């Protein structure tokens, strides 16, 4: 490995999630073919080194005056070097020294680094500050120069050099362990354990060491590789210990005799490269497994819709209670959606969004397709606020994203059409869709913080799309943005304009996002649970804001929510989704007054009311 590989060592970006550690990492690692192959190669090399006497009858240091620089052949598997020593023997015994030296450096770095990391992380204070100081010092020293100087003072012994190198690499382990420990230390459960009397040592052993187990192995393999590389480098410069066989000395001898016998360099070079590659692949595989197991499931759980569930969701006329059935309430035969009719007094506004028989799914590796939205039809009229309500996993957000054609990776629109003002969006080109997004359809996300680019100011994130879509100048865009920020109720627009997302509160960020959504005067605004992530008091404010904007700008809003309160507050019409299908739709008043679908009724029943939480306590009757 290169000396530059030290970077990977000093930037421990490995996940120290406890969940990761506990999830049978070893077993999962064993399913990684590249990792297994790499590990086998390493084991083979170590075994060859250990069993060297069995694999060759030659002594690696025996010089033979008469047999120098012989090629591979009779008697010598790989030939002899410049002193008549058997190359294969030197390769095998050299493996011992090279590997042992690297192991020494790794062990020194690990033992000192881990212990100091544990102590510094757990007890902190002065130990931590002096340790971090020493760490910076060690990291500032270029390894090879220090080793050269040390060698000048202490002599060329491989062991001395490797010990010193191990000391130089302490930061690799220290930083890793320290980060893990100080992270866990702040977890509440550690305090709880302490309160219940668990000793420090047990806490450290049980919680912390489990977490860093795998990352330490990862670091160790990288450090090991670097130690080999540095050894080889020093030997190449001629500064190694000449009396023992090492791969580096073999390389040096090979280069000296490069013109007399070119193939001498090949064997030690191969040995070094193969070991390095195996170590790198092993480390990569380990890191991949760690990261995979640690990543929390980010994608919203896609529910599989089975035929049985479809049947259950479909309401047959016989189940509808007679009292509520009127001739004016038809049931759509295919989807089974209950549709409440509009009161005939209201004039029907033109249809803005017309979704028909939409199906969205995620193709799986085994060929099946997981459907998250099935046979959904939805109408949104101009100027109305339409609520799309359902539980988590009902497919409402997926529906919203389909309209924008911004489904997560792997998602596809399987069937159906989405018409915006008559134009079918599912057939439009990407460039056209891009024009439509922001300009005609806007999006207000759920979680404000994670939906703003942390590296750019609010102002830049507001003005950039405006300049692209509206073609205005920078100053003009800024002026508009400031005005918008004022409109959404931000007290000091200038300051917010110049702020970064992490400097704002959730409520302010959400207002900024709303400002962004309406900045290009869209026709339709899709709001995806815009208040769920906010405090209760802020929720009310945001809802007021949305209502105001809708009145002032006349935008149509499709609001996705699981909260009936929001629906009651804002919506003109409502659609209820369950397991990827719309089960009931109609004017909000009608549905509130008379929910017909069993699922809708369950939802209403789940709303807390004034009734007591439990009945009076009854004495147990004695027999």
């Amino acid at each position, binding site marked *: 490995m290169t000396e530059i590989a030290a970077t990977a060592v000093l930037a421990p970006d490995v996940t120290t999630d406890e969940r990761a550690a506990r999830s049978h990492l070893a077993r999962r690692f064993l399913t990684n073919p590249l990792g297994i192959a790499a590990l086998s190669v390493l084991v083979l090399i170590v075994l060859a080194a250990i069993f060297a006497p069995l694999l060759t009858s030659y002594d690696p240091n025996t010089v033979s005056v008469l047999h120098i620089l012989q090629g591979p052949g009779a008697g010598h598997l790989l030939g002899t070097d410049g002193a008549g020593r058997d190359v294969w023997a030197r390769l095998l015994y050299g493996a011992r020294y090279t590997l042992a030296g690297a192991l020494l450096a790794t062990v020194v770095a690990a033992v000192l680094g881990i212990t100091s990391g544990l102590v510094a992380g757990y007890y902190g204070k002065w130990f931590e500050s002096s340790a971090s100081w020493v760490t910076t010092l060690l990291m500032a020293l270029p390894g090879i120069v220090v080793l050269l100087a040390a060698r000048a003072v202490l002599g060329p012994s491989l062991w001395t050099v490797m010990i010193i190198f191990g000391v130089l690499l302490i930061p690799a382990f220290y930083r890793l362990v320290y980060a893990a420990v100080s992270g866990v230390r702040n977890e509440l459960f550690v305090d709880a354990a302490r309160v219940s009397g668990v000793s420090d040592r047990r806490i450290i052993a049980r919680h912390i060491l489990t977490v860093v187990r795998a990352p330490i192995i990862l670091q160790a393999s990288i450090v090991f590789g670097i130690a080999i590389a540095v050894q080889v480098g020093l030997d190449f410069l001629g500064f190694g210990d000449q009396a023992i066989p090492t791969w580096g000395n073999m390389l040096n001898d090979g280069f000296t005799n490069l013109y007399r016998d070119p193939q001498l360099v090949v064997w030690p070079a191969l040995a070094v490269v193969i070991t390095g590659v195996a170590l790198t692949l092993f480390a990569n595989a380990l890191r991949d497994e760690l990261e995979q197991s640690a990543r929390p499931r980010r994608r919203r759980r896609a529910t599989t819709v089975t035929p049985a569930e479809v049947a259950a969701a479909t309401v047959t006329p016989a189940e509808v209670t007679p009292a509520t059935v009127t001739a004016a309430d038809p049931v759509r035969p295919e989807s089974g959606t209950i549709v409440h009719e509009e009161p005939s007094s209201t004039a029907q506004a033109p249809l803005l969004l017309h979704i028909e028989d939409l199906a969205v799914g995620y193709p799986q590796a085994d060929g099946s397709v997981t459907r998250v939205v099935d046979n959904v039809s939805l109408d949104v009229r101009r100027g109305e606020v339409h609520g799309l309500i359902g539980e988590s996993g009902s497919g409402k957000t997926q529906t919203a994203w389909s309209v924008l054609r911004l489904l997560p990776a792997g998602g596809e629109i399987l069937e159906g059409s989405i018409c915006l003002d008559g134009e079918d969006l599912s057939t439009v080109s990407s460039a056209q869709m891009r024009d439509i997004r922001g300009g005609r359809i806007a999006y207000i996300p759920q979680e404000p913080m994670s939906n703003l680019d*942390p590296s750019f100011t609010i102002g830049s994130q507001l003005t950039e799309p405006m300049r692209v879509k509206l073609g205005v100048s920078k100053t003009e865009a800024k002026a508009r943005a400031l005005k918008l920020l004022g409109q959404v109720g931000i007290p000091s627009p200038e300051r917010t304009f110049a702020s970064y997302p992490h400097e704002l509160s959730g409520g302010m960020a959400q207002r900024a996002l709303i400002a962004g959504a309406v900045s*290009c005067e869209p026709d339709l605004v899709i709001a995806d649970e815009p208040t769920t992530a906010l405090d209760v008091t802020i929720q009310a404010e945001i809802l007021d804001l949305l209502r105001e904007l809708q009145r002032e700008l006349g935008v149509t809003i499709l609001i996705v929510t699981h909260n009936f309160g929001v629906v009651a507050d804002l919506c003109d019409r409502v659609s209820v989704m369950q397991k990827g299908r719309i089960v009931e739709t109609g004017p909000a008043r009608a549905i509130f007054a008379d929910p017909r679908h069993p699922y809708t009724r369950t939802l209403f029943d789940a709303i807390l009311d004034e009734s007591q939480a439990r009945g009076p306590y009854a004495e147990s009757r004695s027999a």
Partner: protein
Amino acid sequence: MLTFTVRRLLYGVLLLFVIVTLAYLLLYAAAGNVARTILGPTATQATVALKNKQLGLNTPLISRYFSWLGHALTGNFGSSWFTNQAVTTAILTRLQVTLTLVFGAVIVSAVVAAVLGVWAALRGGWVDRLIQLFSVLGFAIPGFIIAVFLVRFFALGTHWFKPTGYIPLTTSFSGWVGTVTLPVIALSIGLVAGVAQQVRSSVIEALRQDWVRTLRSRGVSERSVLFKHVLRNAGGPALSVLALSFVGLLGGAVIIEEVFGIPGLGQVAVLATSEGDVPLVMGLVVAIGVIVILVNLLIDLLQGFLNPKARIS
């Protein structure tokens, strides 16, 4: 920002002071025979004794240290014991050579790694695998093996580049390119491997973020999403990798300069440390220390620019 910079610089000075003191004590522990080394075997003991006196090796260590320190603070680092050249001159003339190589490697690596990392992240499939393979190999093969290979094939085989030496930019542009290209490539390969991997995973991670969807929902072009937003966010971790590898690059430069016969700091470091040329080694220690501290500071400032959360308020 200003207080941050000043504080870091002061901290760096303190660090440098510690390094320098340690180095001085360490070196003088081994300086006993340097007179003989300079003069060689044929000189008489009398000449050796005279040389020892001339080098000031007969005075106590502490007084020598303070004398050196005093001179150093005024910018006088003495002269090399082996070439009699003023240490500051020796280091400054060679410094630009090594820095050319090192910064050349950093820039080339940054650009190539960014391209490869983004390509691997976006395309996936066989492109991704190929780039991963290249990364593994670049990581695992020691730099000097690559260097020797480059010399054999590209300098001597095809005569496109010069096998040894260094021609400054001010002397001849084509000459400079001819002598600098291969060493920079040899230095860069290991670095590209590491940074490309980091860029790739950062880009993949960034593309998974919610704000990417929100930006797209605003109608921002894919190109802007990728090159303005994603790369900016991916830059931070990649920059960390670059920062940490800078010190490793200096070590790598030592070997590369030996192979290519380039008169840089690395070549002088090998010679000076092996001979025990104390004034020159001390000058080197100071020079390298200053470079590392300044580069780390620069990178921290750059990180602050890239990642607002990292800025020290």
